[in-house]
């Protein structure tokens, strides 16, 4: 059993280690590697509007390429990461962020799963308690004798 667990752990480690990231290739990138790295990080957090579940960093869609160019422009112009993101959010809404911000309209999104989990846990706990409380009373002497009789008959 223990050996199997270790084997599983090794498999998971290998899966994590061999993670290969896809990356879109652009003809024009930023000269300064530090700025380019910053731009790449920002791109990872921006959703491609055409493919929807890819970031613009890895998307091959034409629009994603256009948006990457804008991110690089803003970074080169000296914008902070937040300013670059705000620039695109102003045009495409929170939707363009891979990680939606926590606010009133996204309350159900963020708080829903933990709330459901808590509710389920509560239900389980209450059910368990009730089962213990309503455990049947022990057998009376008469019932025990009856049970004995049934058992010997068979």
């Amino acid at each position, binding site marked *: 059993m223990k050996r199997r667990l270790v084997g599983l752990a090794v498999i998971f480690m290998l899966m994590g280690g061999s993670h290969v990231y896809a990356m879109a290739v652009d003809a024009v990138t930023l000269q300064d590697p530090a700025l380019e790295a910053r731009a790449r990080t920002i791109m990872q957090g921006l959703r491609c*509007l*055409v493919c*929807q579940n890819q970031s613009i960093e890895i998307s091959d869609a*034409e*629009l994603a390429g*256009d*948006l990457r160019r*804008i991110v690089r422009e803003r970074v080169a112009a000296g914008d902070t990461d937040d300013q670059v993101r705000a620039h695109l*959010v*102003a*045009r*495409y*809404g*929170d*939707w363009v962020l891979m990680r939606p911000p926590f606010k009133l309209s996204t309350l159900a999104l963020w708080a829903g799963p933990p709330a459901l989990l808590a509710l389920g846990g509560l239900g389980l706990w209450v059910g368990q308690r009730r089962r213990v409380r309503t455990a049947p009373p022990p057998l009376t002497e008469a019932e025990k004798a009856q049970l004995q009789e049934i058992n010997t008959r068979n």
Partner: protein
Amino acid sequence: MRWQSFLPLIVVSFLAAVLFVGLELDPKIVPSALIDKPVPQFDLPPLPGKEPGLIAADLARGGISLVNVWASWCGPCRIEHPQLMEIAKIEGVRMIGLNYKDDPAKALAFLQQLGDPYESVGTDRTGRVAIEWGVYGVPETFLIDGHGRIVLKHVGPLRPEDIPEKILPAIQAASQ
């Protein structure tokens, strides 16, 4: 029967209602961030022979405008074109084209073949101005009120039923 016996039924009905509503929603449609905002600043050259081009101020001169993002290479644009011709007949509505990443010669040929509903057309060769508008595909259509504010965005081709169901009511609301 205690009320608790109905609990699973209540939970399942609630879930079914939520999921049923979800079925009707199109996840491909991204809500516009620009509703009730003024149109972005831009200055676009015309299609040759269809001067002048288009600037943001053209949309704030009073009166309602419909800005249609289109391209000759876009299949669904052909499908919605008859609807644009129809809307162009409505009095008091300026139909304006934003030609997206297109070859001007092909764009002109498209209009010659299918009819030209546009009062003016701006050509966005790089797609940069379209990004200012939050465009993420063609066709897309915006309704602009008399103050140059975006009041409605339609993503994808306009279907015939969209005119009475969506466009006309929005025009009516915007002209008040």
